[in-house]
């Protein structure tokens, strides 16, 4: 890798026909699943060409999800930091409280088009599980959510939400009982129920066409931001910041801006206790290319190619891989990927809450931590947009546990 790759004409042209973003992406699945994946790909291409599909999706995004989400000028944060102007893209205000619903709404309409009656999904913290159970309730479809037994124990409210919404929550005890194991079991379910089942993957990862499809569905974030910042500032932003687990909020936010050469685009990985500690979820800063869950991407793994456990205070970032398009954008040097620790995220979580009256998701707090650190050193006319990917109500118990109740009530 001593030679940097030639600069492409566009950073928005991928993937190729086989689902590759350069070295990354692809379709690394068992033969039994290949025909299913090809079927999803074909259906997605047909839906994309059908104006009725887009009209239906737009209808639900406007009237059910509550789009467009606001672009909010964080005046107090900007004043306190004394540097860049900080805007927040308010994905936390969507129905179900995060960007996840953008993807679920699109994929559930696709599943309906394909005539699938049973929906399966994996979930870590439970946010994608709740969003999936929500759209299944909306359309009366059977819903099975795979969730690691460890995660079920630490995310009880979301488990109850999913059950209220009519979903069956299946505990996954294989491996360490976390998100990657839930994804393994969802894939095993899909192999066994290919005829009637649609696998609604929650992030811009997995076998082609999922990374591209989820990105396309999340691009509504970046497209809205473009129009909103033009209205507010009369120009495009100077920098964009978003957190990365699998990376779906970030890729949807970044993608419409990738070919704008002047914009500094920054993805924030979860560094847990610090990259050097080995206890982190930063697959690009601390991992290596590998193949898992249907795609080639950066993975946390040992020298023998065994996948290792991720660690982050934020369950939504607690995954040992990353979407393949991010892996490619890293290699291209178009997006900077920066690690932020649990401690930094906790501090930003409290800071935004106090300054703006907005409790951010711990995932989004990783992006805020970087923004708050960078803003003071930037000029007053620098326009920075942070994607506030979700709200933090789900995280208050976790935060209380880490801070101790005395400090929270002070």
């Amino acid at each position, binding site marked *: 890798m001593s030679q940097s790759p030639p600069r492409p004409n566009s950073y928005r042209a991928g993937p190729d026909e*086989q689902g590759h973003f350069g070295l990354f992406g*692809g*379709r*690394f*699945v*068992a*033969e*039994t*699943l*290949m*025909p*299913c994946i*090809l079927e999803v790909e074909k259906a997605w291409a047909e839906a994309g060409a059908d104006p009725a599909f887009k009209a239906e999706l737009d209808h639900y995004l406007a009237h059910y999800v509550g789009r467009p989400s606001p672009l909010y000028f964080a005046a107090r944060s900007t004043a306190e930091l004394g540097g860049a102007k900080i805007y927040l893209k308010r994905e936390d205000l969507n129905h179900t409280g995060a960007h996840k619903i953008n993807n679920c709404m699109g994929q559930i309409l696709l599943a309906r088009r394909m005539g699938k009656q049973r929906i399966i999904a994996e979930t870590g913290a439970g946010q994608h599980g709740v969003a999936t159970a929500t759209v299944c309730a909306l359309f009366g479809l059977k819903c099975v959510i795979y969730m690691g037994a460890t995660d079920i124990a630490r995310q009880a409210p979301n488990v109850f939400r999913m059950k209220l919404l009519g979903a069956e929550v299946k505990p996954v005890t*294989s*491996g360490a009982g976390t998100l*990657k*194991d839930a994804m*393994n079991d969802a*894939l*095993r379910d899909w*192999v*066994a*129920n*290919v*005829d009637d089942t649609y696998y609604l993957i929650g992030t811009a990862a997995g076998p082609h066409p999922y990374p591209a499809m989820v990105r396309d569905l999340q691009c509504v974030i970046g497209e809205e931001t473009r129009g909103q910042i033009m209205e507010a500032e009369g120009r495009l932003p100077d920098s964009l910041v978003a957190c990365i687990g699998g990376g779906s909020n970030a890729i949807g936010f970044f993608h419409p801006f990738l070919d704008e050469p002047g914009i500094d685009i920054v993805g924030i990985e979860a560094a847990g206790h610090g990259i050097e500690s080995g206890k982190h979820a930063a697959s690009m800063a601390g991992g*290596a*290319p*590998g*193949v*898992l*869950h*249907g795609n*080639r991407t950066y*993975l946390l*793994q040992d*020298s*023998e*190619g*065994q*996948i*290792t456990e991720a660690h982050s205070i934020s369950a939504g970032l607690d995954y040992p891989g990353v979407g393949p398009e991010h892996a490619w954008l890293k290699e291209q040097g178009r997006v900077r990927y920066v690690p932020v620790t649990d401690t930094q995220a906790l501090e930003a979580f409290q800071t935004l809450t106090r300054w703006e009256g907005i409790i951010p998701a711990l995932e989004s707090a990783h992006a805020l931590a970087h923004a708050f650190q960078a803003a003071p050193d930037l000029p007053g006319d620098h326009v920075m947009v942070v994607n506030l990917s979700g709200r933090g109500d789900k995280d208050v118990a976790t935060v209380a546990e880490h801070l101790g109740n005395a400090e929270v009530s002070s």
Partner: protein
Amino acid sequence: MTAHPSDDRLARRFADLKAAGRGGLVVYVMAHDPDAATAQAILDGLPAAGADIIELGLPFSDPMADGPAIQLAGQRALAAGGSLKGALDALARFRETDSETPVILMGYYNPIYRMGPETFAARAAEAGADGLICVDLPPEEAAELADPLRAHGLHLIMLAAPTTDEARLPAVLRRASGFLYYVSITGITGTRSADAETVACAVERLKAAADLPVAVGFGIKTPEQAATMAGLADAAVVGSAVVSELAGSLDAEGRAGPHTVSRVHALVGRLAAGVRGDPPSGQS
């Protein structure tokens, strides 16, 4: 260099089976399960117990196509220090006493990719492997591994599934070598079993399209099922049942018991008797 046909243990074994007028028994065991020494003893004794072909499982942390039995086998192997390198070492030791029984490695791509396809192919050939089944490497992604394998005289054994339709089959067959592995159910290993009639139709379709032996696997548990499937095709693969027999012999801490090796070999013996049409021995 490509292997000369006469060096091809796999082709020879299938020719011998054909001459004997029966299908073969393919036995899957997980390398390093439950520990290196026990796994070696099991592996070394498989040919005498009646395995015609051996599939040596490569432990992986995230075996997406496997059911609980093989998942647990992989976890035991990894906990005991198993790895791809360790599996190749075990195979090399097996080859010190057996130069005739074909051994196919079966696993997932990431450990192989991490080692490097070229390095892997060279080491696997040196250890005495005859081929590889890479579960999560469909023909669309197989080129980067298929070329090094071929250069080292190793077969890349492709999977065909009930979902593999006429449109896809040619793409699978273009990469296939050694034999074709028919995944007889839509599902993971060691769960439900296919009915004979459906499998017979599928095997007929594959044989018409490919000039390769066909082995049937997934969900074959008993000597009777093995006999039926081996009769319909060129071989039957038994994995989860063997691994479960091993698991049943372990103590509460997952350590090998005094009968672990003998119980596995006894089950293989019963399966082999079924495939060979021998009368049941009654006791084993």
